[in-house]
């Protein structure tokens, strides 16, 4: 089986209008095909009124390509791209709540936290909240470390990913701010198979 034929994690990046109901419209493209969304992040992009979705799924590239085209087809989607984990730099943020007494008593805990790049966000009499960012294995690792010391609560964010090869992304996006249609905007850019950026 070649690399392309194997299921693997894909990062789907979608730029959209900020429109009620669009999340559902995008989500059903996956659910209709019984594909699980492993991680979903949506937040405003650097351009006002344009939102950015980061969706992670584990699938064959062939399937992901078709999904991305279906997503791009939606009226309020500006652009959709997909990338493998090798093509992106990605992070997840995790918060850990631990008893402050335990940390005060056991010096080793503080050392472990520091070794794992965690920093305290809130320190109260009864508990302390630590934060780390990193890949899934890294944030998982700290759970295992803290578990014996009485982890009170844990939460992890969805993945955010930045594309390695995205030179000029921001300026391309600025094009969308123009009200009149321009040559660049009209183009289905992912059809430009030779280009480094804006290629599906």
């Amino acid at each position, binding site marked *: 089986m070649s690399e392309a034929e194997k299921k693997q994690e894909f990062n789907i990046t979608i730029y959209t209008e900020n429109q009620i109901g669009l999340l559902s*419209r995008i989500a059903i493209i996956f659910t209709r095909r019984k594909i699980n969304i492993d991680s979903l992040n949506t937040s405003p992009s650097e351009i006002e009124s344009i939102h950015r979705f980061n969706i992670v799924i584990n699938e064959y590239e062939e399937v992901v390509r*078709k999904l991305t*085209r279906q997503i791009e087809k939606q*009226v*309020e989607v*500006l652009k959709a791209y997909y990338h493998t984990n090798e093509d992106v730099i990605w992070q997840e943020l995790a918060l850990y709540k631990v008893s402050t007494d335990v940390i005060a008593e056991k010096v080793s805990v503080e050392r472990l936290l520091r070794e794992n790049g965690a920093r305290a966000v809130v320190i109260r009499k009864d508990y302390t909240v630590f934060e780390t960012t990193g890949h899934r294995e890294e944030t998982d690792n700290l759970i295992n470390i803290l578990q014996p010391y009485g982890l009170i609560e844990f939460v992890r964010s969805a993945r955010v990913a930045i594309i390695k090869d995205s030179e000029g992304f921001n300026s391309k996006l600025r094009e969308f701010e123009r009200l009149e*249609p321009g040559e660049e905007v*009209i183009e289905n850019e992912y059809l430009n198979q030779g280009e480094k950026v804006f290629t599906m």
Partner: protein
Amino acid sequence: METAQETLTAPAATETVNVSGSVALLEALIAEGTDTIFGYPGGAIMPIYDALFDYNDKLNHILVRHEQGGIHAGQGYARTSGKVGVVFATSGPGATNLVTGLADAQIDSTPLVCITGQVFAHLLGTDAFQETDVINITTPVTKWNYQVTDATEIPEVIAKAFYIARSGRPGPVLIDITKNAQIQLFDFAGYKPCDHIRSYRPKPIVRPQYIEQAAELINSAKKPFILFGQGVILGGAEQEFKAFVEKSGIPAAWTVLGAGAIPSDHPLNVGMLGMHGNYGPNVLTNECDVLIAIGMRFDDRVTGRLDKYAKQAKVVHLDIDPAEIDKNVKSTVPVWGDCKETLPLLTKAIEKKEHTEWLAKFNDYTRQEVEAVIHNELNPTTPEMTMGEVIKQLNEITKGEAVIVTDVGQHQMVACRYAKFNNTRSNVTSGGLGTMGFALPAAIGAKFGAQDRTVVAIIGDGGFQMTCQELGTIMQSGIDVKIIILNNRFLGMVRQWQELFNQRRYSFVDIQSPDFVALAAAYRIPGKLVDDRADLTAALNEMLTAPGSFLLEIMVTKENNVFPMVPQGCSVSEIRLK
């Protein structure tokens, strides 16, 4: 209201008029060229209907008997007229009754704008009377949908709705308007049509390099084969398509929805594709060297088993929707774009050719099919009539000039196979969704969309009973629709499958019917029952020359099968003649 109406039609650039959301909606519809609305009133859409009362002279509202009938009528109207069909329904059950039609229009790319009433905005999410989450229910079956909660949004949203419905690959749009927005007064500054949405690209840019590559493949092909679909009709590219076919000399076969894009008797029209299509087009799909697909989407009913479909061929795929390229069949050359633009470029780039020997192969298969299937279907020796001979007789009278509206099942396949089409926009049927009950209401809409043409609805005894209440719409509107019920006293297509694949275990296909002629008479529609071949021609003539609507119930063989047939899971080259 009357004064507002007079001034609104041509508002000066800076002037505003204080109107309700409902009036703004109707003005927007008129500005978009709407002349006919199919609808059904109800609580949450009452302010719009109240405004409509004063617009009787500009907007012809057809009161249907069920919202599903309304939307199918809208589809029929859109299919024959090429315009956007407009449908009104109230909230809750009114809106949910549209869902089948929306799904049908979505899969068959039919441009519609559906307006649904909704409860007051402050009641949203409270389980108010007749409140339902229409936007979420209809999201998978609409090209776009939007909920209006403020009247000031209406002009812009309706402009967007029409633009989205008809541009690019057309589709249904639903606009849900809360009751408060329908009532709310606002300063209406006139209607501006929409011609651009920044996030929406109706069609991809045409790539010259793909035209060149496609032309090269076509020029060097020995056994090229064209498959065409509704894209040719939706793009209004019938002339461009004909020019391409004639210069290239390539045999061309059609999908069910592509029928009529080129006349049935054109020498290069080699017939119908798919499960019940013609013998040659199916077998030779797996023999051609270059397959040129134009405005079609390789539906599974066309391709049969995909891993044995045209594997030997290089594929040129012309489509306006990039998501269709490589979706089912991998293309060698993807010709992105509107075929109205790409076809002339391609025609220019190809050499004029004739493929006499290759075309003769199609004709040879036609001869075999005539011998094995067609001759007996059209000229039966059995005492009972066949569906095919009815269509043949109809062809002889209408000469291929009529609009044929079909429902779903055996009669649909027989009608598509044998009906003659001289003109485009003549075959109205539910293709992708296969919606039984489509034909009667769609025929009503088809007639409103093409009032100078004869519209013949051909319906099975099963499908007719799904929407037969629309006889009431025919009665009240006085529209002239000719109705043929091909009655085989079975749910024929399912029965055929049960016979062929389930050892004749006829599970719930034995359907009883009312006296259809008496039912029509109850709606004051004249009708006739024909169960003797000797009466067929006279009865068809009587129906077609009747001054208004007419229902003909024709008794046909109970257990006739539609052949040829590509059984499910088989390759197109494994098509069976019996």
